[in-house]
């Protein structure tokens, strides 16, 4: 497929992103650049200075709600994109309501309990929907531990080991790798496998 053909397919697609922090903001930017037509984003949080080591926001946006700042940044990259921004602390019923029309959902929360909650909500109430989650991205280095695996409609990206903590903080490179792996997995779900691409190991 040429990029024009790819963009024509992606323009008709809608992707939901739950959380607009390190994973969500970077994943959204990758999908906007690739040409996904509509993004549904949700977050309740406000940008603070410590977010800027990894999240796709700018110093002059400190204090803004993440969803609204991200919408502005996405529209600066691609003025044609439609961004539906929800200032919400997502609960299971919100997830079902705001993401039910999405082709794929991306989990981009920080807390493990929230990751568990969205997996259960989507499995129980939107069982036909693919969900791409990010698990394990603290620290730096060890590129090759970051991987993708799939269990039915669930796609898992990350190292599945390095929980974020004070001494294993999230930093742009590793968080960005996982966020972009999630975006790459979304493209594979939306476009199918690329027949022109050389594959070393099996993909999704």
């Amino acid at each position, binding site marked *: 497929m040429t990029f024009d053909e790819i963009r024509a397919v992606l323009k008709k697609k809608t992707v939901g992103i739950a959380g607009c922090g390190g994973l969500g903001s970077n994943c959204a930017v990758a999908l906007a650049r690739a040409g996904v037509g509509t993004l549904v984003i949700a977050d309740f949080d406000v940008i603070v200075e410590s977010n800027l080591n990894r999240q796709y926001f700018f110093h002059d946006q400190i204090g803004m709600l993440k969803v609204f700042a991200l919408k502005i940044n996405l529209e600066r990259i691609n003025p044609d994109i439609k961004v539906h921004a929800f200032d919400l602390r997502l609960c299971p019923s919100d997830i079902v309501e705001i993401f039910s029309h999405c082709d794929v959902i991306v989990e981009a929360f*920080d807390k493990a*309990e929230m990751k*568990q909650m969205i997996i259960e909500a989507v499995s129980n109430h939107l069982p036909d929907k693919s969900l791409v989650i990010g698990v394990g991205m603290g620290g730096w280095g060890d590129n090759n531990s970051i991987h993708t695996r799939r269990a039915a409609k669930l796609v898992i990206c990350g190292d599945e080991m390095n929980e974020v903590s004070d001494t294993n903080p999230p930093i742009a490179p590793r968080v960005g790798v996982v966020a972009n792996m999630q975006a790459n997995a979304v493209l594979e779900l939306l476009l199918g496998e690329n027949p022109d691409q050389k594959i070393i190991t099996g993909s999704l």
Partner: protein
Amino acid sequence: MTNLKLLQMKIILNNTEETIDRDQLTVNELLKVKNFSFKMLVVKINGQLVKKSDYDQAMIGDGDDVMVLHLISGG
């Protein structure tokens, strides 16, 4: 006479084939056998989510495809 038949099953656990010396076991028994002591878990058997309250009842048998996902914070 004791029954000497060796009870074994093969399952797929997190995309890898595993042989377990039982003919079936519950989710909680599997977590114990594998020393999985994680707090925040999602378990699927053949793609079906198992509720935490069902870990003592939900049975895993020969040929089942089991996913145990350990959720950790960060994002």
